[in-house]
């Protein structure tokens, strides 16, 4: 038949799904960031952004998270070359950097609570913890997926024909990183 066009337009099924999911996630974080911007000055007598934020510290943890995107790219590259050793190395480094970031967030949260900003202190506090908390949860899910990938790599090896998994995790991970760049700029840098 002459008319047998390729109707999929060359789109990969799993990547199409991941992109549409991430588009949805973009709106999710958009709503969280909007809430924060609405409530940034409503401190209800509690501490405000300027008193709390430690920009040098958060800059370092942001840098750690950005570097994890680099290691993720290296992992993806190793996967494309079918280099299992390198793949494992970079997957685990990415997960490790993610854990360092989460540790930094845990430290930051406990410091803020110590300085008097809790979930129920002010709308500012509620929206700050909700936004950064949901971002942290996304990083944690990413770390879980990276660990699962690494375990699979040890057990059976992640070949190219074995689905799109590394590429999908990479898409997700980069997305979570990009969201953090926005959060760091809007929530931290612009508020002090």
């Amino acid at each position, binding site marked *: 038949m002459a008319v047998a066009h390729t109707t999929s337009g060359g789109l990969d099924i799993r990547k199409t799904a991941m992109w549409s999911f991430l588009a949805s996630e973009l709106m999710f974080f958009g709503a969280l960031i909007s809430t924060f911007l609405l409530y940034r000055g409503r401190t209800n007598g509690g501490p405000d952004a300027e008193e709390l934020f430690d920009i040098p510290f958060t800059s370092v943890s942001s840098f750690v998270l950005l570097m994890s995107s680099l290691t993720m790219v290296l992992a993806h590259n190793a996967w494309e070359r079918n280099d299992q050793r390198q793949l494992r190395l970079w997957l685990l480094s990415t997960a490790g950097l993610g854990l360092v970031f989460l540790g930094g967030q845990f430290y930051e949260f406990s410091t803020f609570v110590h300085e008097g900003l809790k979930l129920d202190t002010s709308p500012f506090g509620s929206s700050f913890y909700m936004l950064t908390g949901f971002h942290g949860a996304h990083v944690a899910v990413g770390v879980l997926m990276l660990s699962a990938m690494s375990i699979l790599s040890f057990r059976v090896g992640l070949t190219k024909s074995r689905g*799109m998994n590394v590429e999908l995790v990479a898409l997700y991970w980069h997305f979570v990183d990009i969201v953090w760049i926005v959060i760091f700029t809007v929530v931290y840098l612009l508020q002090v």
Partner: protein
Amino acid sequence: MATIVEAPPVAPAAPSSRGGLWGWLTSVDHKKIGIMYGISAFVFFVLGGIEALVIRWQLAVPDGTLVNEEVYNQLFTMHGTTMVFLFVMPVSAAFGNYFMPIMIGARDVAFPRMNALSFWIFISGGIFISSSFFLGGFPDGAWVGYSPLSTQSEVIRMDFWAIGLLILGVASLLGAVNFITTIFTMRAPGMTLFRMPVFVWMQLVVAFLLAFSLPLVTVGLFQVILDRNFGTLFYDAATGGDPILWQHLFWLFGHPEVYILILPAMGIVSEVLPTFSRKPLFGYQFVVFAGAAIGFLGFGVWAHHMFTSGLGPVAETAFGLMTMTIAVPTGIKIFNWVGTMWGGNISFTTPMLFSVGFVAMFTIGGLSGVTHSIVPADTQQHDSYYVVAHFHYVLFGGAVFGVFAGVYYWFGKVFGRMLDETIGKWHYWLMFIGFNLTFAPMHFLGLNGMPRRIATYGDGLGWNYWNFMATVGSFVIALSILVFLYNAVRSYRSGELAGPDPWDGRTLEWTTSSPPADYNFAEVPVVEAIDDFWYKKYGEDEDHLPVRLDTNPLDPSASAPQEEFHVHLPSPSYYPILLAVGIVTLAYGFLWLPVGYLVMAAGLGIMLWAIFGWAMEDIDHPMGDNGHGEGHADDGGGDDAEAELVGTSSEGAE
């Protein structure tokens, strides 16, 4: 002389060769999932309808005493929540699931197990919300859940509501991702985007609307849950929180939601009208682009629900203008539907009646909608019965009429036997009369000042007559639904056999057997035109009148037993239902902390078991042996293998 080889009507088999309860619970077949969506949606439709009848009985006469205010609040909250989230949304998911893949010439959706997961999460969420009836009472903060009604009541009812909607949101998001992927990547050869049936286009627009609007209300719902349970101050005005934020988040979702409810019905009507006018859809591309335009504009009009909340003149003017703008693509569609019927060879079958009713009733609802865009007028109408009349004309006169058009149109395809036309016409006319008797008077009531959401009203306000008539109308609607249920049961058992193409249809689903084989198509169709099936049946004479061609464009499965074709299908899986059970267990546990921590732990355990099993599941058990199983042999897990199965078999058939 043109003759055609008509396939004899094959007696309907069970919808799938894997029957039994276990077969349904573990099915990943988009058709079975569609049927389950449809039946559960109708159960919720009856529940929501009973709630509406109690409301109407209470309001039939002044100072009604059937229920007190507390119960009344629960009734209208659950009526709205049930009809929107548990009836219209899942019933359009039912049609989408069953027919979208067939209409694009695919053998299943892109992610069959995720599709099953959507359904099971939906049904768990529906049961979760409805179970509140036995666990302290229905939610009572209205379906819009405005703070402080949602955040400051002490009982857990609104927790049921907020968490239940979160669960339903997950189901819809998974469905949306699945549909977007399926429509973009699984179309049959030659099925370009602009050859897709309008129904499929509308499902695509709806999927995008869901993907972009659900996360907004998700954030709002999380804020309500956090406010209620963890002391956050999002909606606490005393400490600087802003309840108006909830209205923005809710309506940023809620207005696209209106189009999520109506666009699938518009898609159904756009299939039915051409079939029974025996003409192509007038201005196909205009209808498609108008649908997409409605989707885009739908994100820019949300604040017209909030004109009385003090937005300020600039915002009110902007949103008023945007709201008027959205009438343009809607009007385009209405003119195109009328243009489709104009000069057509119309046969007034039951689906056609419902479609014509849809166009007329939706136009009335659309016009009263335009009156809301005029801010001073809206300020008068706000929260009055005029608004109730308006949205019932678009959602009942629109969406529900569209849904019944689809039910009468496709029942024969799904169950192999046609719904009875005579009883169907009784159903239509009863519903049409009852609907107008119920909701047309509400325009007058609203303009006469009757507010909505009041449990009773005093004598002597001039509202008695029309309230009584509306109550009479609502029971006529109930009678029409009983007629429909009788028709459905009777026709399912002993209706006329449908055969593959009972309506002389235009789209691919009519090339398959009724009900379609598990694999839909024995040979993947090759598409050459819009309404491809029609042009394979009919040519044109010199006067451009259709002439039947001497061809048999039916799929081979339509005239031969299913067993003759060996097509590789994804295996059934019980992990989707297990995961849904885990999620709902987690949700129930959350409501009764601290004891609930144990339940939550159990829920998490079930979820982990299901996710792990899902990822590791060997989905490569062929249902029958086949000649093309090579493309998926080495995959240990993940949905792409399922997709490949379907893709591989379609390659094999080309």
